[in-house]
């Protein structure tokens, strides 16, 4: 007889926004290092979005505790084999990197840009960490549906990448910058991330085998198939591949974000 921790919406939001924070940061850092001046909006949007998300994530983590006033107790010990312990530390460290990158992205100064790229190179590691560790955290439990496949971390990382990129495109669209080169490049990168997420999800379900039943045929199964697979992955990819001039450029991004939230929701809320 195993026991579900009974985590609720705050943790679902944390997993979702943490993925966006990590994904937006490494997307911005890669655009910063390998892109050109026309990607500047992607870089700035990504860094600042990630900083905001990290702030919200920290608050969600504190509010979710049974005794929120004791959140500092997380820093009483450091266990490198324990995702919950490293996660608490890394969120703080990543916050520092996101702050420095964001602050330095506000200036057009050459020297500051060079320093920012160096900082972001290291920060990227923490970005990848934040997007994926929540998956590893779930797989290091005794619950079969969370722990029987070895790909929960990879799945969360792929979703963090696709939602992080989608969030950047959404913000660029809202700020009226959807005609630029940066917007196109983010969409191109997101196309691969969505495709990769689909492949990882299929492998994940295959590896889970019969343990996947609560997810694929449980009470949240309609949400899983309809919300995540169809609405969050297949349709945005189809719109993208078919050219999709008949729908506003922002629709796939919104669908990917909705799908990313549903992924975390069905995984956390399916009590097997």
């Amino acid at each position, binding site marked *: 007889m195993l*026991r*579900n921790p009974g985590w609720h919406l705050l943790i679902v939001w944390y997993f979702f926004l943490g993925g966006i924070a990590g994904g937006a940061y490494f997307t911005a850092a890669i655009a910063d290092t*390998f892109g*050109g001046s026309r990607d500047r909006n992607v870089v700035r949007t990504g860094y600042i979005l990630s900083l905001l998300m990290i702030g919200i994530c920290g608050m969600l983590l504190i509010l979710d505790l049974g005794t929120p006033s004791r959140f500092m107790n997380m820093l009483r010990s450091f266990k490198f084999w324990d995702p919950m312990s490293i996660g608490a530390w890394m969120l703080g460290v990543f916050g520092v990197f996101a702050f420095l990158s964001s602050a330095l992205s506000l200036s057009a100064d050459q020297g500051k840009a060079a320093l920012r790229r160096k900082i972001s190179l290291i920060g990227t590691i923490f970005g990848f960490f934040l997007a994926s560790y929540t998956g590893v955290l779930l797989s*290091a439990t005794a619950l079969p549906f969370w722990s029987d496949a070895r790909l929960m*971390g990879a799945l969360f*990382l792929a979703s963090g990448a696709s939602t992080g990129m989608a969030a950047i495109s959404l913000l660029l669209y809202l700020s009226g910058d959807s005609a630029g080169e940066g917007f196109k490049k983010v969409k191109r990168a997101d196309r*691969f991330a969505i495709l*990769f997420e689909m492949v990882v999800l299929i492998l994940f379900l295959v590896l889970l085998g019969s343990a996947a039943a609560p997810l694929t045929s449980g009470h949240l199964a309609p949400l899983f198939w309809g919300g995540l697979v169809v609405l969050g992955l297949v349709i945005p990819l189809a719109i993208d591949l078919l050219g999709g001039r008949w729908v506003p450029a922002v629709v796939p991004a919104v669908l990917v974000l909705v799908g990313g939230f549903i992924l975390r929701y069905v995984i956390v809320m399916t009590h097997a």
Partner: protein
Amino acid sequence: MARTLAMFTDTSLCIGCRACQVACKQWNELPMEEPQWTGSYQNHVHFTDKTYRLVRFIEKPQPNGELQWLLMSDVCKHCAQAGCLDACPTGAIHRTEYGTVNINQDVCNGCRYCVSSCPFGVVAFNHDTGRANKCTFCNDRIHNGLGPACAKTCPTESIQFGFRDDLAAKAEKRVVKLREMGYKNAQLYGADTNGPLGGLNAFFLLLDKPSTYNLPEKPLLPQRNVLVDSVLAVGAALLVGVSAMVAFRERGGKGDGDA
């Protein structure tokens, strides 16, 4: 570290009186909970944040159609390699000098990670205090030379308390005797320190295979998954990173460097 202490629960002696359950509630000042009718004499269905000792009433169908009653007083196993202890980010869950596993209520911040990390589903979240609860092995009693309340009160000595090595030797003899008496499936669960989870400091003598008692045949440490999962996540990060690099690379060479 002092000599490891243990509890040995010999289910062949249990008469299902539930005195252990009551003694545990009284000593630890745990409030009552509404009983639940599930068609069995067992109450409650599982451990809760207010029930640390629980007599399980297992009804096993026999070939002749009758039911055999298997009684087992269940408790936190105080694993030598404890999933809850490894999962605890605050250090509230610790190993005592006697080898038992305890939750320091003054440190626990209620993150609930231990709840899903227990291979036996023992640890429970207490919504009243906002902390995690489980059997304390009567830490206050054993520090004052008293055995745990459940062992002290057991009228048939189904629950025995003592040094681990002494109890394990006793258990070995008992299982041999029971087999001679015709209990073919009599077996020890968690007595072997080379076994799963490095042995359980609350171990059992069962009259049937562990799964009959809803116990995992081979309990595993959840943290065994961290390394492989992390390596695969790093692989995924490399793939995603390279693809984003290709997407953002300026055609016809490197970026112009203008920030």
